[in-house]
Each structure stands twice: as C-alpha cells, then as structure tokens.
C-alpha cells in the first residue's frame, strides 16, 4: 500500500477500499519508524493530520471529494503553515509559528490533501545537500552515508523511502530537481510565476519557484493542478488561463525534437551517469523523437552569475531577520546594533552568513557594476542561449547532476566545489524556465536523474515526455533496500 502512487491511492480512496484515516495512520507510522535514520522531518503533526484525514473521509463519503482528497503528503519546511512551526531549517525560526498559511498550503488544504509534517531542508534553502539544516543532515535512503541532495532533501528522501507518497519542494537553483535526481524520484520546477510564492519564505525572489516532488510524472501533474494558478498576493504571479497538467500526459512524442547540449555531456560528467542518460534518450528515439545536437555555450557562466544574483537577493530578503518582530533574539543586547548583529550571528548558520556576506559585498557601493550588474547581463545571455536553442528544438535533455549522490561531509567545507555541483540546474532558474528530473537508472548503485528542460509554459509537454518514459521504464518504481516493508 505504501508504495502506491498518488493516482493509485486516489483510486483506492474513491472506491473506498481504504480510508484516509487508515492511509494517514499507515504513512505516519512509516515516518515515525524511519525518521531517526533518515532525519527527513523537522516536525511531524500526527494530531492535525488525523483531524484532516477524518474531514477528508467525510468528504469522500459524501462524494464531495477531488482527486487528491485524503492523500497524505508533507510540505518542505519553507512553506508557512498557520500554527505549525515553520523553521526554514534555521535556528532563526526555531520558534516561529506563522500567523497565516502560504498560498500553496491553502490550495493543497482545499484539495483535501493531508499534511503529515514539515520536511527537512538546507537552512533557508541555501545548500545542495541538506547538510546546512539546523536540525542536522537528512540521509539518502539509497545509501545512508550519502547526502539526499538539497535543498529539498527531506522531501526527496521521504518520497524515495516511501514514507510519504508526495511532497512539496522549492527550486531556486536546482533544489527540487537535484535532490529528486539523487534520491530517484520525480521533481518538477515550474515556469517562474506559475506557483505562488506567497508564504514561501524568500531566498532569491527572482529565482524561487515551488513545485511537486513525487514518484511519477503523472502524480506531479496531479499536484500541479492543485498547486499552480494566479495569486493576487504574489506580485510576480502570472495571470494565465488555468492549465490542466494531466490533459496531455499520453500525447505522442512522434516528431518531437530533443536537443542534446554538448556542454551537458562533457568529460567531467560521471561515465555511469552519461551511460544511463544515453539509454534514456534511445528510449525517446524509439518513441519517434528526433535527436538534435545543440550548444548552450554560456553553461559554465551560469554558476558565477547565479552565485552573485542569488546571494544578492538573499542578503536583501534576509535583512528582515533582525530579532525585533519575530524569530531568534539574542539575550541582553547592550544596544540596538548589538541586538541586530548578535541575533543574526547567533541565529544564522555558516552557509547563510557566507551568502549574506557575498550578497552584501556585490551590492555595495563601488562593486555593484562589476559584480551584480555584470551577473544580470550574463543572466540575459544565458536566457538568450536557451531561446536560441528553442527555435530549433522542443525540449532539451541531459543529466540533472554531473554525478550521483556524494558523501555526507564530503563537500561541506568547500563551498565552491559544492556550488559547482549545481552546473546543470542553475541556468534554468536564471532563465525562469520549467524543467523536470525523472529517474533514469543507477550509477554505482545510486540513482541517476534525467533532466528535461522546456520553453516557458511547456510543463504539459515535459510531463507528457516524462510520463511516456515512465510507461516504458521502471526506474521510478525502485524502492531502496530497508524501506520495502
């Protein structure tokens, strides 16, 4: 039962073969049994979960339910949940109980989903390994000595271990796709502006985007139907007609042009990963897709551009944490400046402070043009690269990461090496494009992710290609040893 997809659980609930309370109890007990070894959750809320499950069962019995009603899941701990601690993985917000729900939280509540708890993450979503969390690192269920990726590592690890059938994540530079790839699940980063950012604690506002993390593309489409949509409370939310993300899942891929950027298949990429990606591409060729070799020449510049733009925006967004209105406050401040400085220094972890300092520097007088403006110009060049490519091809494919999961503590003391691990994901955020990572096999026993990048608003096409791929493969159905019972 615990290994079922959202689609299967939805059908069982609809047929009343199982109740939401039974499902909730089942997944809660899995979460409680395995959280100690994986550390996926910062907070579990069994009481409210069971209340919501009871309410969902009532709706189902009265036939007032939707496709997601009664299905358990978890939120990344970056989404504000009224009355439930929302820590963002930080000591700064260890005691923070938001006075309101994020729009995504509200929407999934309205859809009747049952939130079991809040998933672990890198502090303020800054990291690629979930090791910067104040609550300790999350582990990869495929190998407990490896990281699950980050920053949505708690969500990815929990879905991979089948502790929950789905989770929310956020992606600023790869934080949905990279952990999805390293844990062997499906993760979609939507087009910027598709999913509301209201109540999603801000890291870099021009890059942040929420999305679903699931077993399958079909499940991601189902979640998107509930998560996406215009929100008056988010000033960059896009006013567009409602999309049914499930409508095109079974479309044919005959004649679809897939671009393979030379830069995504370099010698620096793990050989086992390349092999699996090439196998996946053959699968698409079999389905009638055409392969086109393309260039994304500015790929290498995406890391330097991103690591100026993102910290700059972060340093501005995180200035709100001042020890006055909410969050951590240092004891016995001798004056206002001391209150600010010590609250921030004691409340933030090292990686967050490092990024605040970089961001502050690149925005400071005398350096703004050389760093921040330069990075924004390179950002346009990166976007133009993609736009050029999409004149020729429908989608772009390549590995989500250049290697499978790395070891815990392996890169934690080397920020630049950790940043370079984001090479294939950050450019998508700089351009604001949608992209999905789907399981494509294993290299040295660890999951490999295939990334499919599309033009703006091409989520239905990405989900369609991912779904068709999952009809012909069973990589997404693999469950790590130790979590199969």
């Amino acid at each position, binding site marked *: 039962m615990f290994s079922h997809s959202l689609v299967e659980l939805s059908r069982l609930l609809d047929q009343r073969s199982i109740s939401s309370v039974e499902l909730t109890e089942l997944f809660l007990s899995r979460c409680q049994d395995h959280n100690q070894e994986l550390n996926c959750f910062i907070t579990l809320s069994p009481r409210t979960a069971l209340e919501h499950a009871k309410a969902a069962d009532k709706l189902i019995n009265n036939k007032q339910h939707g496709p997601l009603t009664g299905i358990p899941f978890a939120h990344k701990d970056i989404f504000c949940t009224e009355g439930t601690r929302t820590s963002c993985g930080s000591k700064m917000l260890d005691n923070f109980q938001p006075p309101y729900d994020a729009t995504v939280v509200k929407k999934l509540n309205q859809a009747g989903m049952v939130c079991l708890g809040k998933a672990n993450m890198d502090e303020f979503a800054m990291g690629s390994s979930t090791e910067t969390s104040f609550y300790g690192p999350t582990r990869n269920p495929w190998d407990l000595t490896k990281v699950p990726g980050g920053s949505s590592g708690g969500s990815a690890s929990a879905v991979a271990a089948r502790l929950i059938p789905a989770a929310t994540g956020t992606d600023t530079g790869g934080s949905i796709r990279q952990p999805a790839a390293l844990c062997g699940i499906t993760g979609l980063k939507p087009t910027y502006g598709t999913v509301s950012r209201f109540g999603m604690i801000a890291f870099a506002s021009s890059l942040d985007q929420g999305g679903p993390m699931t077993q399958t593309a079909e499940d991601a489409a189902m979640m998107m139907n509930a998560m996406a949509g215009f929100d008056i409370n988010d000033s960059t939310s896009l006013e567009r007609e409602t999309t049914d993300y499930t409508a095109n899942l079974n479309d044919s891929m005959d004649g679809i042009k897939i671009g393979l950027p030379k830069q995504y298949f370099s010698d620096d990429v793990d050989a086992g990963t390349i092999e699996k990606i090439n196998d996946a591409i053959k699968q698409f060729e079999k389905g009638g897709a055409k392969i086109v070799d393309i260039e994304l020449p500015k790929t290498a510049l995406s890391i330097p551009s991103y690591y100026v733009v993102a910290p700059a925006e972060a340093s501005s967004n995180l200035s709100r944490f001042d020890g006055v209105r909410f969050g951590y406050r240092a004891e016995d401040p001798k004056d206002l400046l001391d209150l600010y400085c010590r609250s921030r220094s004691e409340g933030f972890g090292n990686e967050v402070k490092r990024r605040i300092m970089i961001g502050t520097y690149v925005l400071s007088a005398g350096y703004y043009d050389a760093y921040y403006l330069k*990075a*924004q110009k390179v950002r346009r*060049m990166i976007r133009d690269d993609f736009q050029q490519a999409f004149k020729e091809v429908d989608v772009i494919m390549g590995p989500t990461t250049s290697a499978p999961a790395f070891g815990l503590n392996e890169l934690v003391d080397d*920020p630049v090496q950790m940043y370079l691990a984001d090479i294939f994901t950050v450019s998508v955020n700089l351009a604001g494009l949608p992209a999905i990572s789907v399981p494509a096999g294993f290299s040295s026993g660890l999951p490999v992710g295939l990334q499919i990048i599309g033009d703006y608003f091409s989520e239905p096409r990405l989900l369609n290609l991912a779904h068709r791929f999952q009809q012909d493969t069973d990589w997404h159905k693999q469950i790590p040893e130790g979590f199969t019972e």
Partner: protein
Amino acid sequence: MSLDRKQIEEIAMLARLSIKAEDIPVHQQELGGILDMVEQMKPVDTDEIVPLAHPLEIDARLRPDVITEQDHRDKNQKMAPQTEAGYYLVPKVIE
C-alpha cells in the same frame, strides 16, 4: 581576488553580522574563493547587453487604490520576542 581584514569587517557591519576576529582569515579564504569563481564572468563582453533582473520581464501589476489589509497586529505580535502595549520593544535608542 582577496579581501583584506578591513573589507571583511566592513561587509560584516553592512550585513549586520558580528564576526570574531579569529574567524576573519576563514572568511577571507571562503569569500575570496567564491569571488575567484565569480571572476570567470569578467572576460565576457557584455557592453551591449541589457541587464536581466527578472526572467519574464513582466511589469509590476497595479491594483485599485483601496485598503485591503486588515489589522493583524495582535496575531503578528504573538510571536514577537518582546512587546508592550502593542509596540515592539528594542533597547533604548535615544538617551
């Protein structure tokens, strides 16, 4: 790219972070390393390029000039570290 001690202290002050004197070399090394990586952009010719601040280049949305916010002071102040009579308390600023 290396930053001297004074620069590290200035950045920390601008960012309202207090740093320990003995940690300054670590900050120098880490920030220097990141800035070295960032320097890769330097040789790129960007003279004719317009900066891109926002991926979709949408205009800010306007709304009717009416009050929509309700007063949530009590709710918001519930999680404030220190309040009194509806105000946030901070150390004395004016002598």
